[in-house]
Protein backbone atom coordinates (compact mmCIF):
# COMPACT_ATOMS: atom_id res chain seq x y z
CA UNK A 1 0.00 0.00 0.00
CA UNK A 2 2.81 2.31 0.93
CA UNK A 3 4.69 1.54 -2.26
CA UNK A 4 1.54 2.10 -4.31
CA UNK A 5 1.11 5.47 -2.66
CA UNK A 6 4.69 6.44 -3.58
CA UNK A 7 4.22 5.29 -7.16
CA UNK A 8 1.06 7.32 -7.37
CA UNK A 9 2.87 10.43 -6.08
CA UNK A 10 5.62 9.90 -8.64
CA UNK A 11 3.25 9.41 -11.58
CA UNK A 12 1.08 12.33 -10.51
CA UNK A 13 3.97 14.76 -10.32
CA UNK A 14 5.54 13.59 -13.58
CA UNK A 15 2.47 13.33 -15.77
CA UNK A 16 -0.80 14.50 -14.25
CA UNK A 17 0.22 17.68 -12.50
CA UNK A 18 3.58 18.27 -14.11
CA UNK A 19 5.44 20.95 -12.21
CA UNK A 20 5.98 23.02 -15.32
CA UNK A 21 3.06 22.32 -17.60
CA UNK A 22 0.33 22.33 -14.96
CA UNK A 23 1.80 24.35 -12.09
CA UNK A 24 3.86 26.81 -14.16
CA UNK A 25 6.95 26.56 -12.00
CA UNK A 26 10.44 27.16 -13.37
CA UNK A 27 9.25 29.02 -16.44
CA UNK A 28 12.07 31.57 -16.69
CA UNK A 29 14.95 29.19 -17.20
CA UNK A 30 12.63 26.92 -19.18
CA UNK A 31 12.02 29.64 -21.75
CA UNK A 32 15.60 30.87 -21.83
CA UNK A 33 17.50 27.58 -21.94
CA UNK A 34 15.39 25.43 -24.23
CA UNK A 35 17.38 26.43 -27.30
CA UNK A 36 19.19 23.13 -27.80
CA UNK A 37 18.89 19.64 -26.41
CA UNK A 38 22.31 19.47 -24.77
CA UNK A 39 21.77 22.59 -22.65
CA UNK A 40 18.26 21.45 -21.78
CA UNK A 41 19.55 18.05 -20.65
CA UNK A 42 22.26 19.60 -18.47
CA UNK A 43 19.87 22.03 -16.81
CA UNK A 44 17.20 19.36 -16.36
CA UNK A 45 19.63 16.99 -14.67
CA UNK A 46 20.93 19.74 -12.40
CA UNK A 47 17.37 20.68 -11.39
CA UNK A 48 16.47 17.05 -10.68
CA UNK A 49 19.60 16.59 -8.58
CA UNK A 50 19.09 19.74 -6.52
CA UNK A 51 15.37 19.02 -6.05
CA UNK A 52 16.01 15.47 -4.82
CA UNK A 53 18.33 16.77 -2.10
CA UNK A 54 16.78 20.09 -1.09
CA UNK A 55 13.19 18.87 -0.74
CA UNK A 56 14.00 16.31 2.00
CA UNK A 57 16.52 18.73 3.55
CA UNK A 58 13.87 21.41 3.83
CA UNK A 59 11.41 18.82 5.13
CA UNK A 60 13.75 18.00 8.01
CA UNK A 61 14.23 21.67 8.83
CA UNK A 62 10.54 22.46 8.54
CA UNK A 63 9.38 19.59 10.70
CA UNK A 64 12.27 19.82 13.13
CA UNK A 65 12.37 23.55 13.69
CA UNK A 66 9.73 25.66 12.01
CA UNK A 67 6.38 23.89 12.30
CA UNK A 68 4.04 24.61 15.18
CA UNK A 69 5.25 22.47 18.11
CA UNK A 70 8.14 21.17 16.02
CA UNK A 71 10.22 18.18 17.13
CA UNK A 72 13.26 20.01 18.49
CA UNK A 73 11.34 22.44 20.67
CA UNK A 74 9.07 19.68 22.03
CA UNK A 75 12.22 17.73 22.91
CA UNK A 76 13.29 20.56 25.18
CA UNK A 77 9.82 20.85 26.59
CA UNK A 78 9.01 24.15 24.95
CA UNK A 79 5.53 24.37 23.51
CA UNK A 80 3.63 26.95 21.55
CA UNK A 81 6.58 27.91 19.34
CA UNK A 82 5.54 28.48 15.74
CA UNK A 83 8.22 29.77 13.39
CA UNK A 84 6.26 29.05 10.24
CA UNK A 85 6.43 32.67 9.09
CA UNK A 86 10.17 32.45 8.44
CA UNK A 87 9.86 29.41 6.19
CA UNK A 88 10.47 31.46 3.03
CA UNK A 89 13.69 32.89 4.41
CA UNK A 90 14.87 29.48 5.65
CA UNK A 91 14.02 27.53 2.53
CA UNK A 92 15.66 29.95 0.16
CA UNK A 93 18.79 30.12 2.33
CA UNK A 94 19.02 26.33 2.44
CA UNK A 95 18.66 26.14 -1.32
CA UNK A 96 21.19 28.88 -2.02
CA UNK A 97 23.71 27.42 0.42
CA UNK A 98 23.28 23.91 -0.88
CA UNK A 99 23.68 24.95 -4.49
CA UNK A 100 26.85 26.86 -3.59
CA UNK A 101 28.31 23.86 -1.75
CA UNK A 102 27.47 21.46 -4.57
CA UNK A 103 29.08 23.81 -7.04
CA UNK A 104 32.30 23.88 -5.05
CA UNK A 105 32.35 20.10 -4.53
CA UNK A 106 31.73 19.31 -8.17
CA UNK A 107 34.35 21.81 -9.26
CA UNK A 108 36.92 20.17 -6.97
CA UNK A 109 36.22 16.51 -7.65
CA UNK A 110 34.76 16.23 -11.12
CA UNK A 111 35.85 18.91 -13.56
CA UNK A 112 34.08 17.09 -16.40
CA UNK A 113 30.73 17.16 -14.59
CA UNK A 114 31.42 20.74 -13.55
CA UNK A 115 31.88 21.90 -17.09
CA UNK A 116 28.63 20.15 -18.01
CA UNK A 117 26.49 21.25 -15.06
CA UNK A 118 28.50 24.04 -13.45
CA UNK A 119 27.16 26.97 -15.41
CA UNK A 120 23.58 25.95 -14.65
CA UNK A 121 23.94 25.66 -10.92
CA UNK A 122 23.79 29.39 -10.08
CA UNK A 123 20.67 29.64 -12.26
CA UNK A 124 18.99 27.01 -10.14
CA UNK A 125 18.89 29.08 -6.96
CA UNK A 126 16.38 31.38 -8.56
CA UNK A 127 14.47 28.62 -10.34
CA UNK A 128 11.03 28.75 -8.80
CA UNK A 129 10.54 25.01 -9.29
CA UNK A 130 12.99 24.35 -6.46
CA UNK A 131 11.38 26.69 -3.95
CA UNK A 132 7.95 25.71 -5.28
CA UNK A 133 8.44 22.03 -4.46
CA UNK A 134 9.57 22.92 -0.95
CA UNK A 135 6.47 25.05 -0.45
CA UNK A 136 4.18 22.42 -1.97
CA UNK A 137 5.14 19.65 0.44
CA UNK A 138 4.24 21.94 3.33
CA UNK A 139 0.91 22.63 1.70
CA UNK A 140 0.19 18.95 1.01
CA UNK A 141 1.57 17.57 4.26
CA UNK A 142 3.77 14.83 2.77
CA UNK A 143 5.96 12.72 5.04
CA UNK A 144 9.72 12.36 4.61
CA UNK A 145 9.81 9.56 2.03
CA UNK A 146 6.90 11.02 0.10
CA UNK A 147 8.73 14.35 -0.03
CA UNK A 148 11.87 12.71 -1.40
CA UNK A 149 9.90 10.91 -4.10
CA UNK A 150 7.92 14.07 -4.82
CA UNK A 151 11.11 16.12 -5.23
CA UNK A 152 12.79 13.58 -7.48
CA UNK A 153 9.80 12.97 -9.73
CA UNK A 154 9.03 16.68 -10.02
CA UNK A 155 12.58 17.08 -11.28
CA UNK A 156 12.07 14.31 -13.82
CA UNK A 157 8.83 15.93 -14.94
CA UNK A 158 10.61 19.24 -15.43
CA UNK A 159 13.46 17.54 -17.29
CA UNK A 160 10.97 15.89 -19.62
CA UNK A 161 9.14 19.12 -20.36
CA UNK A 162 12.29 21.12 -21.12
CA UNK A 163 13.70 18.32 -23.32
CA UNK A 164 10.44 18.25 -25.24
CA UNK A 165 10.47 21.99 -25.82
CA UNK A 166 14.14 21.99 -26.82
CA UNK A 167 13.50 19.27 -29.38
CA UNK A 168 10.54 21.17 -30.82
CA UNK A 169 12.55 24.41 -30.88
CA UNK A 170 15.33 22.74 -32.87
CA UNK A 171 12.83 21.51 -35.45
CA UNK A 172 11.08 24.86 -35.54
CA UNK A 173 14.13 26.60 -36.98
CA UNK A 174 12.95 25.33 -40.35
CA UNK A 175 9.34 26.45 -40.10
CA UNK A 176 7.85 29.68 -41.28
CA UNK A 177 6.51 31.41 -38.16
CA UNK A 178 4.64 34.73 -38.57
CA UNK A 179 7.00 37.59 -37.77
CA UNK A 180 5.39 38.99 -34.63
CA UNK A 181 5.03 35.54 -33.15
CA UNK A 182 8.68 34.56 -33.53
CA UNK A 183 10.71 33.88 -30.41
CA UNK A 184 8.81 34.17 -27.17
CA UNK A 185 5.31 34.15 -28.65
CA UNK A 186 5.57 30.84 -30.47
CA UNK A 187 7.35 29.28 -27.48
CA UNK A 188 4.29 30.00 -25.37
CA UNK A 189 1.94 28.53 -27.95
CA UNK A 190 4.09 25.39 -28.22
CA UNK A 191 4.19 25.06 -24.44
CA UNK A 192 0.42 25.43 -24.40
CA UNK A 193 0.07 22.59 -26.89
CA UNK A 194 2.44 20.42 -24.84
CA UNK A 195 0.47 21.17 -21.72
CA UNK A 196 -2.71 20.20 -23.58
CA UNK A 197 -1.11 16.90 -24.54
CA UNK A 198 -0.23 16.26 -20.91
CA UNK A 199 -3.81 17.03 -19.92
CA UNK A 200 -4.99 13.75 -21.36
CA UNK A 201 -3.33 12.09 -18.36
CA UNK A 202 -5.66 14.03 -16.12
CA UNK A 203 -8.45 11.48 -16.44
CA UNK A 204 -6.32 8.73 -14.90
CA UNK A 205 -7.20 8.16 -11.28
CA UNK A 206 -4.59 6.48 -9.12
Amino acid at each position, binding site marked *: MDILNLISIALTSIFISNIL*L*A*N*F*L*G*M*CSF*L*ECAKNIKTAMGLGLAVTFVLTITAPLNWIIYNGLLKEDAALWTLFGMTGINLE*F*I*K*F*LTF*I*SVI*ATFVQIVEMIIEKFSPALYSALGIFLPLI*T*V*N*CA*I*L*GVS*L*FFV*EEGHDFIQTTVFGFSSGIGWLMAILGLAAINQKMKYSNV*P*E*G*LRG*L*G*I*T*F*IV*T*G*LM*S*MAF*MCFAGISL
Partner: protein
Amino acid sequence: MSFSKSKEGQVLSKPLIGANPIMVQTLGVCSALAVTVQLKPAIVMSLCLTVVLTMSNVIMACIRNFIPGKIRIITYMLVISTLVALADQILKAYVYDISKTLSVFVGLIITNCIVMGRAEAFAMTNTPKMALLDGLGNGAGYSIVLLAVAFFRELFGSGKLLGTKVVPQALYDMGYVDNGLLMLAPGAFFIIGILIWVSNSLYKGER
Protein backbone atom coordinates in the same frame (compact mmCIF):
# COMPACT_ATOMS: atom_id res chain seq x y z
CA MET B 1 16.00 70.23 -15.95
CA SER B 2 13.67 69.12 -18.67
CA PHE B 3 16.15 66.36 -19.50
CA SER B 4 16.07 64.93 -16.02
CA LYS B 5 12.30 65.17 -16.03
CA SER B 6 12.07 63.23 -19.24
CA LYS B 7 14.53 60.67 -17.89
CA GLU B 8 12.36 60.08 -14.87
CA GLY B 9 9.32 59.82 -17.10
CA GLN B 10 11.21 57.27 -19.21
CA VAL B 11 12.08 55.12 -16.19
CA LEU B 12 8.43 55.07 -15.19
CA SER B 13 6.80 54.54 -18.56
CA LYS B 14 9.23 52.33 -20.49
CA PRO B 15 8.44 49.09 -18.65
CA LEU B 16 4.73 49.45 -19.43
CA ILE B 17 4.93 48.27 -23.04
CA GLY B 18 8.34 48.83 -24.64
CA ALA B 19 10.40 46.94 -22.07
CA ASN B 20 7.58 45.08 -20.39
CA PRO B 21 9.05 42.70 -17.78
CA ILE B 22 6.88 39.74 -18.81
CA MET B 23 6.36 40.18 -22.53
CA VAL B 24 9.78 41.46 -23.53
CA GLN B 25 12.27 40.59 -20.80
CA THR B 26 10.69 37.17 -19.96
CA LEU B 27 10.88 37.79 -16.24
CA GLY B 28 8.37 36.58 -13.70
CA VAL B 29 6.32 34.46 -16.05
CA CYS B 30 5.43 31.69 -13.60
CA SER B 31 3.06 33.67 -11.46
CA ALA B 32 1.61 35.49 -14.46
CA LEU B 33 0.31 32.14 -15.65
CA ALA B 34 -0.68 30.55 -12.40
CA VAL B 35 -2.77 33.15 -10.60
CA THR B 36 -4.75 34.41 -13.56
CA VAL B 37 -7.72 32.04 -13.56
CA GLN B 38 -9.79 34.81 -11.98
CA LEU B 39 -9.41 38.54 -11.86
CA LYS B 40 -9.53 38.95 -8.08
CA PRO B 41 -6.44 36.92 -7.12
CA ALA B 42 -4.62 38.52 -10.05
CA ILE B 43 -5.31 41.99 -8.65
CA VAL B 44 -4.08 41.00 -5.21
CA MET B 45 -0.99 39.36 -6.69
CA SER B 46 -0.18 42.46 -8.80
CA LEU B 47 -0.47 44.70 -5.76
CA CYS B 48 1.72 42.37 -3.72
CA LEU B 49 4.42 42.19 -6.36
CA THR B 50 4.41 45.94 -7.01
CA VAL B 51 4.77 46.70 -3.30
CA VAL B 52 7.52 44.12 -2.76
CA LEU B 53 9.37 45.19 -5.91
CA THR B 54 9.23 48.91 -5.10
CA MET B 55 10.30 48.41 -1.51
CA SER B 56 13.14 46.06 -2.36
CA ASN B 57 14.33 48.45 -5.08
CA VAL B 58 14.36 51.39 -2.65
CA ILE B 59 16.06 49.39 0.11
CA MET B 60 18.73 48.08 -2.26
CA ALA B 61 19.35 51.55 -3.66
CA CYS B 62 19.73 52.96 -0.16
CA ILE B 63 22.25 50.36 1.02
CA ARG B 64 23.95 49.77 -2.32
CA ASN B 65 27.18 51.52 -1.30
CA PHE B 66 27.66 49.35 1.79
CA ILE B 67 27.30 45.94 0.16
CA PRO B 68 30.42 44.17 -1.08
CA GLY B 69 29.90 42.96 -4.64
CA LYS B 70 30.53 39.32 -3.79
CA ILE B 71 27.65 38.89 -1.36
CA ARG B 72 25.11 41.04 -3.15
CA ILE B 73 23.00 38.10 -4.38
CA ILE B 74 22.47 36.74 -0.89
CA THR B 75 21.65 40.25 0.29
CA TYR B 76 18.92 40.52 -2.36
CA MET B 77 17.57 37.17 -1.20
CA LEU B 78 17.44 38.25 2.44
CA VAL B 79 15.79 41.60 1.73
CA ILE B 80 13.28 40.11 -0.70
CA SER B 81 12.31 37.10 1.38
CA THR B 82 11.79 39.27 4.45
CA LEU B 83 9.49 41.54 2.43
CA VAL B 84 7.63 38.55 1.02
CA ALA B 85 7.17 37.01 4.46
CA LEU B 86 5.66 40.34 5.56
CA ALA B 87 3.35 40.43 2.54
CA ASP B 88 2.27 36.84 3.17
CA GLN B 89 1.42 37.55 6.81
CA ILE B 90 -0.56 40.65 5.84
CA LEU B 91 -2.54 38.74 3.22
CA LYS B 92 -3.27 35.93 5.69
CA ALA B 93 -4.52 38.45 8.22
CA TYR B 94 -6.76 40.55 5.98
CA VAL B 95 -7.80 38.54 2.91
CA TYR B 96 -7.50 34.95 4.09
CA ASP B 97 -9.54 33.30 1.30
CA ILE B 98 -7.53 34.97 -1.46
CA SER B 99 -4.30 34.08 0.29
CA LYS B 100 -5.50 30.43 0.18
CA THR B 101 -6.16 30.73 -3.58
CA LEU B 102 -2.72 32.17 -4.22
CA SER B 103 -1.21 29.43 -2.01
CA VAL B 104 2.47 29.00 -2.79
CA PHE B 105 2.63 31.77 -5.33
CA VAL B 106 2.98 34.57 -2.79
CA GLY B 107 6.06 32.78 -1.48
CA LEU B 108 7.33 32.37 -4.99
CA ILE B 109 7.62 36.15 -5.37
CA ILE B 110 11.05 35.53 -3.81
CA THR B 111 12.20 33.68 -6.90
CA ASN B 112 10.20 35.90 -9.21
CA CYS B 113 12.98 37.07 -11.47
CA ILE B 114 11.53 40.57 -11.82
CA VAL B 115 12.34 41.51 -8.24
CA MET B 116 15.90 40.24 -8.28
CA GLY B 117 16.44 41.27 -11.87
CA ARG B 118 15.53 44.90 -11.17
CA ALA B 119 17.66 44.92 -8.02
CA GLU B 120 20.65 43.72 -10.01
CA ALA B 121 20.06 45.70 -13.18
CA PHE B 122 18.78 48.99 -11.80
CA ALA B 123 18.70 49.55 -8.05
CA MET B 124 22.40 48.75 -7.54
CA THR B 125 23.48 51.59 -9.78
CA ASN B 126 20.84 54.27 -9.20
CA THR B 127 19.58 56.63 -6.53
CA PRO B 128 16.68 55.57 -4.27
CA LYS B 129 14.35 58.03 -6.00
CA MET B 130 14.99 56.55 -9.45
CA ALA B 131 14.78 53.03 -8.01
CA LEU B 132 11.37 53.89 -6.58
CA LEU B 133 10.14 55.00 -10.00
CA ASP B 134 11.66 51.94 -11.65
CA GLY B 135 9.93 49.67 -9.14
CA LEU B 136 6.57 51.33 -9.72
CA GLY B 137 7.01 51.22 -13.50
CA ASN B 138 7.96 47.56 -13.64
CA GLY B 139 5.28 46.67 -11.14
CA ALA B 140 2.73 48.40 -13.36
CA GLY B 141 4.07 46.65 -16.47
CA TYR B 142 3.69 43.30 -14.70
CA SER B 143 0.21 44.19 -13.47
CA ILE B 144 -1.01 45.16 -16.94
CA VAL B 145 -0.13 41.75 -18.36
CA LEU B 146 -1.48 39.91 -15.34
CA LEU B 147 -4.79 41.77 -15.42
CA ALA B 148 -5.16 41.38 -19.19
CA VAL B 149 -4.59 37.61 -19.02
CA ALA B 150 -6.90 37.24 -16.03
CA PHE B 151 -9.57 39.36 -17.72
CA PHE B 152 -9.69 37.16 -20.82
CA ARG B 153 -9.46 33.91 -18.90
CA GLU B 154 -12.26 34.78 -16.48
CA LEU B 155 -14.51 36.37 -19.11
CA PHE B 156 -14.31 33.63 -21.72
CA GLY B 157 -13.55 30.76 -19.37
CA SER B 158 -16.42 31.18 -16.96
CA GLY B 159 -18.43 34.14 -18.25
CA LYS B 160 -17.71 36.10 -15.08
CA LEU B 161 -15.77 39.19 -14.08
CA LEU B 162 -14.68 39.56 -10.43
CA GLY B 163 -17.04 36.70 -9.62
CA THR B 164 -20.24 38.19 -11.05
CA LYS B 165 -21.87 36.84 -14.20
CA VAL B 166 -21.45 39.28 -17.09
CA VAL B 167 -22.32 37.12 -20.07
CA PRO B 168 -26.14 37.40 -20.28
CA GLN B 169 -28.26 34.28 -19.94
CA ALA B 170 -29.86 35.03 -23.31
CA LEU B 171 -26.52 34.35 -24.98
CA TYR B 172 -26.27 30.92 -23.33
CA ASP B 173 -29.82 30.17 -24.49
CA MET B 174 -28.73 30.90 -28.03
CA GLY B 175 -26.06 28.23 -27.69
CA TYR B 176 -23.00 30.15 -26.42
CA VAL B 177 -20.72 27.94 -24.34
CA ASP B 178 -17.96 28.96 -21.95
CA ASN B 179 -14.56 27.83 -23.12
CA GLY B 180 -13.47 25.60 -20.28
CA LEU B 181 -9.97 25.20 -21.73
CA LEU B 182 -9.14 28.76 -20.72
CA MET B 183 -9.57 27.86 -17.07
CA LEU B 184 -6.91 25.16 -17.40
CA ALA B 185 -3.16 25.45 -17.86
CA PRO B 186 -3.00 25.46 -21.70
CA GLY B 187 -5.38 28.43 -21.89
CA ALA B 188 -2.92 30.56 -19.93
CA PHE B 189 -0.08 29.69 -22.29
CA PHE B 190 -2.16 30.48 -25.38
CA ILE B 191 -3.44 33.82 -24.08
CA ILE B 192 -0.01 35.05 -23.10
CA GLY B 193 1.41 33.87 -26.44
CA ILE B 194 -1.27 35.78 -28.30
CA LEU B 195 -0.74 38.90 -26.13
CA ILE B 196 2.95 38.84 -27.00
CA TRP B 197 2.09 38.48 -30.68
CA VAL B 198 -0.30 41.43 -30.57
CA SER B 199 2.11 43.68 -28.69
CA ASN B 200 5.01 42.70 -30.97
CA SER B 201 3.01 43.56 -34.04
CA LEU B 202 1.65 46.85 -32.65
CA TYR B 203 4.85 48.22 -31.15
CA LYS B 204 7.37 46.83 -33.61
CA GLY B 205 8.61 50.28 -34.60
CA GLU B 206 9.18 51.53 -31.06
CA ARG B 207 11.83 49.01 -30.12
